[in-house]
Each structure stands twice: as structure tokens, then as C-alpha cells.
């Protein structure tokens, strides 16, 4: 199973590159998404492994299923997105190749059972997504790609320093497999473990979009094409966070959980603060969504930092955020095509102009800020409840205030875009079915999860949380 996930993209990518046909590009994405769905469900029912470097466990299977769902939706949306695209077939093929390789790299990160292998795959994601951000080739796209490549490369190098410092503390045994690290956690020299954690947090946190190393995120996610933004926000940030979570687990077992959790809380709150500052003043709705990604990563970090019931909330929030944010970004692609601009001010009257997109925009917004019955409400509620249980009243208050400020900022922009008279050029078409169907499916899934979470799913989340 794991071999299918990792090797098919290579074959498909080679085929896409050689055949250079539009129909095959879209078909290859469909094929891979089906294979991913099939393999991930299979792996859920029966965990597997492939050589000693790749393995699924309760935590990574959740990430894998999120990846599969997201990629399916995005591949459907991509079909109609590419209809609007006027680039040459060669560039479209290269785009498809990169998407395949990128998804394979993210799958590799999720499936890794060895710290260094995880690092290599995160490196691979940086390399494969660079072209995707650069796809539209405008000067701002060049700027965004450069910032992305450079900041993420520095981040990866810092993460590598952290891994090296960690391996200095290993002393006797010399492998970085996660289960071995977990077993022998107490034997790791605490000095090196403590020294390596900030480096790993800063390094992988760069890819995960945690402040203060988030600087590439607004630029990269806003300049890339909408399907790419959806995948980046929905899967890459999760995968990088997985790297951090694995190391946090080792710290926990080595009796340094408090130290790790304090740092995570600090990073989480800083992310929330940064988002609260900027989200009201952005002029570009895709940047607004990117800042919202930073906020949600911060919330997940806070959830892990609180510990206890917060862990379940963090995993739940992770899933909900991925689906919601993907839906958000895909809808923003519709708006971009209809209004021709990515700025907030010129866009008006979305509900009147294009009802499907408009209602999706409002509902996704309601989902992301945590209105019931959407699942983000549940996860944020659980985090606050966990804070109260631990007596961290002040922290909960700050959490409330920051979330409210962020909601106000986003609401101002989103609602302004939706109501009023339609400001698109006359004759702009409405979005076709493939352009709102994936988002609708995501929203329905989220509603189901929020209203009545099936027991099997809840058990899966709890199993994932217990791994941490």
C-alpha cells in the first residue's frame, strides 16, 4: 500500500512529462487521488509498513486521510481551474508533475518513521512547491517564490542543526527511528535534547507557519494558483506540524514535556497575535486566508501546548481546518476568475452575482471562525475547556480576545465582499458545477463531523491523540 502512495506519482509524473497532453494531466491527478483514497482507507483498516523507514500509526493515518480527501477535492477543482488557464501545454504539464511530486513528498513526510527521512521529505516538498508558487510568473510571484525558497531553506537548515544536536545526545544507540527514540527517551542526554528542541521547533515551524518564522506564508499562499494554495494550506502545514509533534512526544517521554509545551504555547500565541494585527488590514483576500492559516496553526500549537484534552482538540482542529481552508481557497479561485482581481475592495455583491460561490464563501467563513455547528467550534471550545481545567484563566482570556479580534477582522472583509450590488464586469459567468462541488462536499463532511461525529471517527481521533 505504501509503495503505491510513494511510487505511483513518480511513474505518473514521468508519463505526464513525456506525453504532454492536457487530458492526461487531469486524468493523472484523478488517478492518483483515487489511489490515495483507496490506499489510505486500506491503511486505516490495516496499518502497514514499507522498508523500515515508512510506517503508519494512529496519528499519521489521520494526516494521510486528510491528504487523500483534500487531494481528491483539489484534483476535481483543478480540472475547471485549468480551463481558465492560458499557459502553454508544456508549462501545464510541468505544473501537474510538480503537484504529483509535491503530494508524494507530503505523503512521504506523513508516512516517515525516521526523523532524518522526515526531514528529507520536507526538503522535497520545498523544492517541488517552488515552481507551483511561481506558476503565474508575475513579478510579485517571483518575489513570493524567492521568499518562500529562501526562508524555508534557512528553516530546513536550522531544523537540520536541531536534528544533529539531538543525535549528539543519543550516546549509545545511533538511530533516529521514532519508536526507538520513544523507547529510549530517558537515556538521551537531557542537555542535548533541551538544546535541540528550539532549533527543531524553529526549523519545522518555518514550514508550518508558526510565528515568528511565518514570513513567507502570506506571500506564497496568495501568489500561487488557488488549487495550489489549497494543498499548501491544507497539507503542507500539517505535515510540518507532524514533524514537530513527533519530537514533542520524545521530549514528553524524556520528562521535558513542560519545556516543550511552554515553547509551543509561546509560538501559538505569537501566531495568534500576528494574525490579529494583520488580518483586519490586508487588502488582498487570499492574504487574509493565509493569515487565517497562521492563526489556525497557532491554535493547534496551543492545543498541543495545553496537553491533556487539548491534544484531542488539536487533532480535531487539524482535520477541520484542512478541509475548511481548502474549501476557502478553492472558492477564492472562483472569485478571482469572476472579478479578475485578488483585492478585497473591488469585489462586491458576491451573493447576487454568483450565488453558489457567495454562499460557500459565507459558510466557509462561518466554519473557519468557529461558529457552531461546524467542528472548529468544538475544537476551540475543547481547548478553552482544557485551559480552564488546568487553571490557566488568564491564558484563556487572551485566547478569547485574540480570536475575537481575528473574527472581527475577517468578518469585516468577508461580509463586505458578499453583500451589496454586484461589481463584476457584466457578462462574467457564474461558476460551473465542478468549481463548487468539491467545496460543498467538504462543507457537508464538516457539518456531519460537527453535528454528529460517528463513533469510529471519534475513536480514531482519540487514538491519534493518545499517540502524543
Amino acid at each position, binding site marked *: 500500500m505504501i509503495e503505491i502512495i510513494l511510487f505511483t506519482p513518480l511513474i505518473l509524473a514521468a508519463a505526464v512529462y513525456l506525453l504532454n497532453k492536457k487530458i492526461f494531466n487531469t486524468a493523472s491527478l484523478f488517478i492518483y487521488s483515487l489511489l490515495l483514497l483507496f490506499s489510505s482507507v486500506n491503511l486505516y483498516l490495516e496499518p502497514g509498513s514499507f522498508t523500515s523507514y515508512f510506517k503508519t500509526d494512529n496519528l499519521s493515518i489521520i494526516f494521510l486521510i486528510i491528504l487523500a480527501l483534500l487531494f481528491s477535492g483539489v484534483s476535481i477543482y483543478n480540472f475547471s481551474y485549468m480551463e481558465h488557464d492560458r499557459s502553454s501545454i508544456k508549462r501545464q504539464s510541468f505544473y501537474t508533475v510538480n503537484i504529483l511530486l509535491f503530494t508524494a513528498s507530503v505523503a512521504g513526510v506523513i508516512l516517515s518513521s525516521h526523523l532524518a527521512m522526515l526531514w528529507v521529505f520536507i526538503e522535497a516538498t520545498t523544492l517541488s512547491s517552488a515552481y507551483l508558487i511561481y506558476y503565474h510568473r508575475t513579478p510579485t510571484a517571483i518575489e513570493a517564490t524567492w521568499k518562500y*525558497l529562501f526562508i524555508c531553506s534557512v528553516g530546513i537548515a536550522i531544523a537540520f542543526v536541531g536534528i544533529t544536536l539531538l543525535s549528539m545526545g543519543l550516546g549509545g544507540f545511533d538511530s533516529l527511528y521514532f519508536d526507538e527514540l520513544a523507547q529510549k527517551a530517558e537515556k538521551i*542526554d537531557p542537555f542535548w535534547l533541551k538544546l535541540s528542541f528550539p532549533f527543531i521547533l524553529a526549523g519545522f515551524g518555518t514550514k508550518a507557519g508558526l510565528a515568528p518564522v511565518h514570513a513567507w506564508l502570506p506571500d506564497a499562499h496568495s501568489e500561487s494558483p488557488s488549487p495550489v494554495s489549497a494543498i499548501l494550506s491544507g497539507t503542507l502545514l500539517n505535515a510540518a506540524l507532524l514533524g514537530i509533534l513527533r519530537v514533542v512526544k520524545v521530549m514528553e517521554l524524556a520528562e521535558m514535556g513542560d519545556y516543550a509545551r511552554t515553547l509551543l504555547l509561546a509560538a501559538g500565541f505569537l501566531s495568534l497575535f500576528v494574525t490579529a494585527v494583520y488580518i483586519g488590514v490586508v487588502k488582498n483576500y487570499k492574504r487574509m486566508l493565509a493569515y487565517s492559516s497562521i492563526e489556525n496553526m497557532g491554535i493547534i500549537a496551543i492545543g498541543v501546548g495545553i496537553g491533556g484534552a487539548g491534544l484531542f482538540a488539536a487533532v480535531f482542529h487539524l482535520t477541520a481546518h484542512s478541509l475548511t481552508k481548502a474549501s476557502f481557497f478553492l472558492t477564492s479561485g472562483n472569485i478571482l476568475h469572476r472579478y479578475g482581481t485578488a483585492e478585497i475592495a473591488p469585489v462586491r455583491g458576491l451573493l447576487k452575482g454568483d450565488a453558489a460561490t457567495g454562499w460557500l464563501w459565507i459558510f466557509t467563513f462561518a466554519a473557519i471562525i468557529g461558529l457552531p455547528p461546524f467542528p472548529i467550534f468544538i475544537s476551540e471550545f475543547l481547548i478553552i475547556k482544557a485551559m480552564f481545567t488546568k487553571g490557566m484563566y488568564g491564558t484563556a482570556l487572551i485566547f478569547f480576545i485574540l480570536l475575537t479580534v481575528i473574527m472581527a477582522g475577517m468578518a469585516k472583509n468577508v461580509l463586505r465582499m458578499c453583500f451589496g450590488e454586484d461589481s463584476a464586469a457584466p457578462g462574467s459567468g457564474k461558476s460551473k458545477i465542478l468549481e463548487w462541488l468539491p467545496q460543498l462536499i467538504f462543507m457537508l463532511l464538516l457539518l456531519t463531523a460537527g453535528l454528529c461525529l460517528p463513533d469510529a471517527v471519534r475513536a480514531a481521533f482519540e487514538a491519534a491523540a493518545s499517540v502524543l
Partner: protein
Amino acid sequence: MIPFLIILFSLTMLYLGATSRVEAYIKTLALQGVILFFIILLDYGTENIPNLIFLSAETLAVKGVLIPLVLMNVVRKNDIKREIEPNIPFFFSLIITSSILASGFYISWLMSDVAISAHPFFFGVSISTIVTGLFIIITRKKIITHIMGFMAMENGIFLLTLAIAKEMPFIVAIGVLLDIFIAVYLLGFLVNKIQDAFAGVHIGTLTKLKD
């Protein structure tokens, strides 16, 4: 002999902190590659000969020859001569680099009772190289010097991995991987025909994306 080579390595970092000529940066990076090559040869011992050959060949070929050649090509094509106005004048840059090096030695001294497996000199100099690399990235304005600061940082990371090379040889190999990937991609980005003039670009021009 190895402490001598490491000291020489730290002197090259001092030079990077002080100079404004871009070609001097490139030559210093090549020199660092050669010094690392000698350190690998002398420190490795005789187990695992294929790994040794691979590592030393890679260091010399990629760090010592290939990357400086490509960088020199880019610099000559874009006619970049000097980094004229950095964020901090070069005098203070040298003072700060010296103090980073001094703190690196201080850290070595602090570590000398903790680190049994790592040669303390390795650790202090590599940490100071990494921090100096970051410092160069922060204080310089041209994109090409940012890349060279990053390369210097990578050389520091490589030196750090050499400290545990005996116990975990594959960490060094992965460090090499980092080097090659980043070099290929970052440099590929620069050498691409479309962004011909990008390397000489001032980072002050990359301010279109902001809130």
C-alpha cells in the same frame, strides 16, 4: 592538525564578515570547501572507506569547485562587484563577527565537560559559523550575498555533523544531501534565463508584497 584547520576555518568566517567584494566571498567559500575536505580526510579514520571517498569527493567537488564556479558565473554575468551599503557598516560587522567567534569559543569551553563525544573545538566554531552565516544574511542587501551567507551557514552545519561523524556517518551524508539540493535549486533559480538580473537585485526592491 585538525584544530589548526578548524581555526583557519574560523578565520575565513572573520574575513567574510569584513569584506565587501563579492568575488572575495566566493573565493572564501571555495577555501572553506577545501578546508572541510582536509578535515574529513584527517578525521575520518579507516573504517568505511566508500563512505569516506564519497564524502570527501562531494565536499571537494561540490563545495570547493562546483558551487563557487556557478556563483562566479552568475556574478560575472550580472556584473556584480561590491556590496556597497550593507545595513551595518563593515567595521561594526567585523566587530560583531569577532564577538560571535569569541562566544563560539566560550561555548566550546562551557561544553568541554558536557560533550564527551564531540570535539569541543568543532562545536564552538561550527555554532559561531552558523550564527555568522545568519548574521551575514541579515545585514547584507544583495540577494547574491544572501545566498553566500546561506552557503557559509551550511558549511558550519557540515562542520557540526563532522563532530559526530564517527558515531552516525549517515548524518553527514544527509547534510551533504542538503547541500546539493539547496545548491541546485537556489542556484538554478538564479541562473535561469528569465531571472537573469535577479541575483544583483537589492532586497529593497522586493517590497511589493506587504500589508
